[in-house]
């Protein structure tokens, strides 16, 4: 059993959105702007032309932060949201009652309603596609041309992700909320 996490070297992101596309393709996410498990946020350039602050314009790929202390799991009345054996936060569509509590509770806007099952869906590190087939990569990581993403087992000291986290400075999003995300951004 692994404890999966992901490191994002976000400064390498070129906003090509290959990851968004790969995720939709791999996990069969429905079309439509609101139906997305992952996204790339754009920070707009600060300043008035011609005094533009080029350094302020960056891209922040994001998705479910795979919180180790997940508010969405805490609030789910039926335990439809659960931690699987690889510590991935997942949703069981059979148990989800679509009360939407998790959607208001997730601090990262990571959840949306899947119109096929009429239940809540979100990134689960390709748990029921690639991981279920025995692969150890996610679609977004596999496709990223600038190698922004490193996916792996945080419990394995020899994994690339553990190595990177040991040697490079990193931060997590909204860490003051105590959600303990397993997505790490390199500085």
């Amino acid at each position, binding site marked *: 059993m692994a404890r999966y996490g992901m490191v994002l070297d976000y400064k390498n992101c070129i906003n090509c959105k290959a990851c968004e596309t790969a995720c939709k393709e791999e996990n069969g996410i429905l079309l439509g702007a609101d139906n997305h498990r992952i996204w790339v*946020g754009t920070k707009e350039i600060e300043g008035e032309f011609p005094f533009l602050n080029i350094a302020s314009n960056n891209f922040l790929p994001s998705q479910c932060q795979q919180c180790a202390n997940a508010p969405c799991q805490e609030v789910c009345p039926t335990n439809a949201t659960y931690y699987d054996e690889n510590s991935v936060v997942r949703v069981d569509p059979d148990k989800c009652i679509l*009360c939407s509590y998790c959607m*208001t509770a997730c601090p990262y806007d990571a959840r949306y309603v899947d119109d096929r099952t009429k239940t809540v869906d979100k990134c689960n590190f390709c748990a029921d596609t690639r991981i279920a087939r025995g692969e150890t990569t996610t679609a977004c990581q596999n496709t990223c041309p600038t190698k922004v993403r490193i996916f792996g087992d945080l419990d394995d000291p020899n994994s690339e992700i553990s190595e990177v986290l040991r040697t490079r400075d990193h931060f997590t999003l909204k860490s003051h909320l105590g959600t303990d995300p397993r997505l790490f951004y390199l500085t």
Partner: protein
Amino acid sequence: MTLKSIIPMKDISLKELFSFKKSFSNVTMAILTVVLLALFLAGSVMYFIDGHHAYNISREHPWGLIIAMYVFFVVSSTGLCIMSSIGHVFGIKEFEIIGKRAIIGAIITITTGFIVIALEIGHPVTMIIYNILTPNFSSAIWWMGTLYGAYLGFIIFEFIFLVRENHKWSKFFGLGGLLVGLAAHSNLGAVFGFLIARPIANGVFFPIYFILSAMITGSYLLFLMYGFRYKMDFPEEVKVMLTKLAKILGLLLAILMFFEIWRMLTAIYGGMPGRAEVAWHILGSSNFLIGEVLLGMVIPFIVILASKGTNIKGMVWASILGMIGIFFMRYDLVHDTQVMPLQLLKIREYQLPPTFIEYFPSFAEIGVSIGGIGVCFVMYYLADKFFELDHNKKDM
């Protein structure tokens, strides 16, 4: 065993069931009820055809008007239960007369609340199954649902014993209903209060505020129910009770205003991101200023203050405004909790950077939720026909 041997009911024919005195107020109520009921049916049909697509809820604003209206109904129920317990649980003589009317009101409003929420939750049947099979004790919604289920059981028994004039058992179930109701209702406040992602809602305020505003709602509803029952021509003991009620209500409103002032001051002070902005946004919205403050608190408060609680007719009218104010309190509670976007970056080309989230209910949402009031009216009409809801004169 027949139903009648369990709970005494009046014998009425089908014709009597549909006949009522054609006074102006009765006819107005009848028309209003039919219109609301039609609205409810239209909304429900739209929901059954299009599911959640009939509603204007979205990824960023997943809770809409129906959740607000559910809160509105269950607040009404808890409020009626608390106010009625002043009489038959705590034994304050003047309030003993409201028992039956208040408790049937509590049963009706919570049932309507359940009906309305069943049209919002995606899978209500799954909910019943997995609430039992795989309960999550850290979920405020789980506790809220479970406790409200128990609460409904308690107050139904309370009502049965009240109609049977069995004061020992009605007191027992009344106390049980009161305690479980308080727990359930503060848990509903906690559904919002526990949201660490939403600084404007997070904290101790909502669980307490829910109980306080429930008592205020219960008082408004009692004024309305009695005003309608006696067509503003009150017998002496009702007058005495309503005057006392007005005084209690005045105190409750004063406490609520005090709470609100400090809530806003603490939300704004220090300018904490995601909280202060939302607080300013709330303070500038007409929903809050006109709906919550003016209609919900200030006007009824002035009516009470100006007459030292004796202007009962005025209070009945003010209670209509008060209930509109209470509606805005519920609506704003749900909407304002979600108004601050959690995604602050642009994620699509040609998108403007996210600002406060816009939401306006769709026709189907308005139908289901506002129309739900019609469901309430019908149930109350039937209850009034089948049961003897007036107090027993010989008890006085």
